[in-house]
């Protein structure tokens, strides 16, 4: 019985090897297909190295092919043999259903799942296109393509010599893609891996590592960003402003809602959203600000929330010049010492936890905002709104230091948007 099984295995192996060679041109270059712009592009010389093997496959395994070969159609010219399978499966649109249809199509085609490594590699590449790169059950489905119990080593020699290395590598690739997208495997993944590769195989080890490290760092981020950011720009602005304000008492104000309206004369007007934030501390700082000195609107500064970048603007003052700073009267010049009592009784000589560095001097920050448009008119509306809660702002000159926003940046690098009063130091400040 065992003997027969081994014979079958051997035959299967030889057939499988034929397929491996045949698909070799596509297989070796997954990195090329992975890069987004390289779809459908292929330099000729590299490919011609392998074409010899591809041609000789027909005489190597004549019997292993058969009628299945015919339905693959014009695949000799195809670089990646299984891409067309996905193309055929998604007649209407690319989604999870059509992706799993393609996987099922492959599984039904051949009971021995010939060429499954190439198929899995192609599937992994295609996942972002179908938008299923974060679906755990799709990954499980892909692992399900592997034939079961064939690659499980059955004696110590097989276990010693890296049994079916290509298949194991392929399994690791699947897990690595899960890792890169931050998908935590589940019980079913483990069950599948055990069934396919057996315990203590490399993919199972990889699984164990994922299961050890992922939960450890799951909550390491003290400033978490939700997986799906709010779609509404006002909600997004509110979320990001609360994040950067670093103050729970800060109050978010929506100064203007986004609006698109068509006037009677057919003219279209759009109102960008303006959302601002100000904490009581900032309000207090602004109230203490000397109205003779200007305040500055600066921006846009980038803020990254995972892979999206939003921009915010800051209202700030200059750092105080040395003559305006309040002088601290030390004990030796003060008759009424101590002015304030600051006793740290539980502190000792070695309890000093201060760092001896020069303070970084920066102007105070009075408010922050995010707007749908970065032009000066929009930001002036924000300042107008701020004046209601901070009356001192109506007496203070406001200078706009705006660097060209992200959109203007692509068109013309030299165009600098509005500046009311031109400060000398403006060119030194480069916003990146």
């Amino acid at each position: 019985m065992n003997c027969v099984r081994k014979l079958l295995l051997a035959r299967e192996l030889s057939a499988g090897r034929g397929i491996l060679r045949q698909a070799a041109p596509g297989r070796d270059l997954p990195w090329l297909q992975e890069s987004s712009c390289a779809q459908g592009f292929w330099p000729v010389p590299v490919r011609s190295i392998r074409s010899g093997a591809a041609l000789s496959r027909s005489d190597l395994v004549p019997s292993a092919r058969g009628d299945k070969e015919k339905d693959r159609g014009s695949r000799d010219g195809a670089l990646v043999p299984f891409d067309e399978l996905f193309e055929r499966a998604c007649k209407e649109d690319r989604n999870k259903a059509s992706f799993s249809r393609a996987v099922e199509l492959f599984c039904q085609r051949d009971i021995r799942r010939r060429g499954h490594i190439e198929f899995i590699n192609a599937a992994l590449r295609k996942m972002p296109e179908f938008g299923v790169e974060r679906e755990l059950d799709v990954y499980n489905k892909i692992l399900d393509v592997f034939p079961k119990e064939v690659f499980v080593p059955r004696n110590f020699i097989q276990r010693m010599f890296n049994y079916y290395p290509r298949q194991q590598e392929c399994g690791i690739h699947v897990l690595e893609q899960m890792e890169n997208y931050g998908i935590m495997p589940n019980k079913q993944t483990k069950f599948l891996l055990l069934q396919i590769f057996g315990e203590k195989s490399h993919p199972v080890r990889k699984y164990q590592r994922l299961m050890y490290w992922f939960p450890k760092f799951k909550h390491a981020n003290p400033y978490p960003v939700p997986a799906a950011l709010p779609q509404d720009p006002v909600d997004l602005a509110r979320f990001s402003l609360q994040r950067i304000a670093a103050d729970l008492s800060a109050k978010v104000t929506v100064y203007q809602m986004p609006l698109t309206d068509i006037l009677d004369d057919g003219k279209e007007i759009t109102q960008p959203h303006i959302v601002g934030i100000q904490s009581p501390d900032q309000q207090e700082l602004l109230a203490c600000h000397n109205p003779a000195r200007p305040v500055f609107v600066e921006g846009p500064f980038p803020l990254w929330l995972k892979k999206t970048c939003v921009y915010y603007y800051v209202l700030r003052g200059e750092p105080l010049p040395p003559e305006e700073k309040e002088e601290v009267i030390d004990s030796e010049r003060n008759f009424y010492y101590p002015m304030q009592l600051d006793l740290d009784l539980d502190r000792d000589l070695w309890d000093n936890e201060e760092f001896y560095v020069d303070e970084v001097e920066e102007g105070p920050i009075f408010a922050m905002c995010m707007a749908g448009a970065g032009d000066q008119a929009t930001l002036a509306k924000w300042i107008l709104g701020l004046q209601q809660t901070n009356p001192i702002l109506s007496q203070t000159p406001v200078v706009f230091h705006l660097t060209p926003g992200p959109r203007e940046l692509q068109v013309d690098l030299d165009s600098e948007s509005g500046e009311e009063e031109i400060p000398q130091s403006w060119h030194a400040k480069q916003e990146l």
Partner: protein
Amino acid sequence: MALSFKLLDSIFLSSRCHRQNALHPLLGPLLTDCIPKLYSSYRRPGTSPDNTPPWKMNFSFEKGVDGIKKHFGILKKELVDHWKGPEGYPLEEYLLEQTRVVWEFRSQKDLDEWVVSSDVEIGGKSEAYLKLGKNNQTALLYGTLNTEAPRDGETEYSGYCAMRAKLPKGAFEKKKYYDWSNFNSLYLRIRGDGRPWMINIYTNPYFSHQKDDLYNYFIFTRGGPYWQEIKIPFSKFFLSSRGRIQDDQHPLWLDKISTVGFTLGDKADGPFQLEIDFIGLLNDRAHTEEFAYEKYERNPKV
């Protein structure tokens, strides 16, 4: 006697540790061109190795004299420091200190102690630059991240930017290490743009197969105009080698620290910036954890 011992020691150590720079300790001050090679031993696939014979390298007598002056200056300082106390601090100060500022960024000289690199080394397209921030007070690390992998047939992923402190060197290019065993936390004052960074600590590789080992942890930046003070206990650092987290973890050896670095690789294409005020050490006595990860063998061998 002490001098000759130091010389011998430095020659022995350096030639043992730098394969490709075996000539360095002797000709070190005379060679002017081979410094960049120190920082990366990576050779891109498809490029031929650099086989410039030593007699074709740039020799400059003037620089040699400068180098000898410099090295004897360092040697003198080392000897004097050794007389004063551990690491040049008086003993009572050394015993009582709870904080220490290791790197601060206040001038161009401070920036010169750092090396900036990006995936351009492996053929990628990211860019990273380091300059002084506003009012010349802080270091601003900025650039763009690009995750497009190079088309060389081997590289699968790309997209990182990194900054690393230069290796501490004693007189005559002798390797030196920081001894941070008085402290248990790393303290950073930074301002980022919301991207997560990774902080890497490189320690003395005792065996050559450990030369790619790094101890890492994450820095999560909040973004926004406010500074952020981050305290990372050394017990949280985990061991990785060549970017892969390792199975058998063990705590950092705090008396053999070589350098500290920052890496960005969050797979988000676009501009980034990180402002660093200073990097310090702190002895946080409320923190008693020795190591945050299991030290027993989790994946027993077959």
